[in-house]
């Protein structure tokens, strides 16, 4: 038998709800409903990716300097964790379809571990960014001595060791003197970090929601609750979790890798 052949036998039975004519219609209805939700999520994240693209095109040099200070090792570790979590989730759905509760629990537990691991790595990364004063706001601070910072000709013309608010008084100058240009660049870098924190923060919120849903499912499956007799709750959670993975697949190169060359 070829490995590409689809398995069609050995699946656990499902209960047909009275409003449906047959079980395939019921399953399709659940999945289309979930995809409708995911389409709204695509619209939501899509708009943020569009904003990132727009401002990156508008301020390429400042954005490249800001890209360069993000630590790729954190982003890469999280990408590996999420892709692995997606694989474990797929295996979990498969086990539930086959009615294997023990394996469902095992794969779901591994997926939960990956989700928690992602948040642990992310919290270390956020801590390092807060420590370096990269969070947008009055405490935002930028130094050329930041590890991995861009040191090309664009930034070397001006001293970049002054805090953003220290040069505000110079902005009244009608000509583009060095401090004024520096202030503008500081605002552009803050814009990048605003987008970075909004996008990764919203993604992290989705991960937390995923943990809550998967944690609930884990206990329902553990105690054989009737609501999880059907495999659909696991399948729909899986769709959500794969979406969270896809968002990171795009976030990782667009935030961490671009501008590293």
């Amino acid at each position, binding site marked *: 038998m070829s490995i590409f052949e689809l398995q069609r036998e050995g699946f656990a039975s499902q209960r047909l709800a009275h409003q449906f004519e047959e079980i395939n219609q019921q399953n399709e209805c659940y999945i*289309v409903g979930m*995809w409708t939700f995911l*389409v709204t999520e695509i619209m939501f994240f899509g708009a943020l990716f569009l904003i990132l*693209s727009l401002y990156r095109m508008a301020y390429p040099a400042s954005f490249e300097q800001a890209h360069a200070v993000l630590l790729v090792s954190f982003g890469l570790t999280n990408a590996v964790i999420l892709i692995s979590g997606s694989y474990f989730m797929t295996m979990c759905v498969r086990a539930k379809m086959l009615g294997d509760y023990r394996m469902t629990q095992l794969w779901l537990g591994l997926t939960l571990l990956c989700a928690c691991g992602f948040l642990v790595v992310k919290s270390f990364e956020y801590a390092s960014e807060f420590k370096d004063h990269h969070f947008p706001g009055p405490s935002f601070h930028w130094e050329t001595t930041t590890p991995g910072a861009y040191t090309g000709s664009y930034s070397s013309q001006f001293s970049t060791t002054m805090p953003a608010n220290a040069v505000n008084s110079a902005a009244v100058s009608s000509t583009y003197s060095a401090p004024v240009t520096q202030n503008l660049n500081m605002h552009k870098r803050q814009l990048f970090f605003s987008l970075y924190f909004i996008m990764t923060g919203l993604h992290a919120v989705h991960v937390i929601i995923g943990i809550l849903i998967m944690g609930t499912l884990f206990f329902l499956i553990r105690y054989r609750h009737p609501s999880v007799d059907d495999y659909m709750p696991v399948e729909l959670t899986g769709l959500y979790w794969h979406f969270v*993975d896809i968002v990171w697949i795009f976030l990782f190169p667009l935030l961490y890798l671009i501008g590293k*060359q």
Partner: protein
Amino acid sequence: MTDHSHDDDLKHADHAMPKPIIYTATWIMLLGLLFVNYLQSQYLDLGAFNIVIALVICLIQASAVVLIMMGVNFHSTLVKFWALVGFVWLMLLFTTLGDYITRHWIHLPQGW
């Protein structure tokens, strides 16, 4: 009135899904593409093509997740259509970038 709690309601759906090895192969492929993307960004500077390469790799990865791991390839045409709707929306959204890119191609008079 029909009693729907009866075991007659237990049905077998017309399921179809690939063998686990396909999922494992997809996982390895996704990790492989991730490292290709990482290595390219660190050691190979292709100028303006850096972002093109990165996005092409991302699109291949996202397609593999949608088609195989999310199982869209094994579902009905309606599910395939619905999944496609989201990506058509994304394409429409990103066509607005064309406005920003081409805005200063035409030199308009400054006005009064």
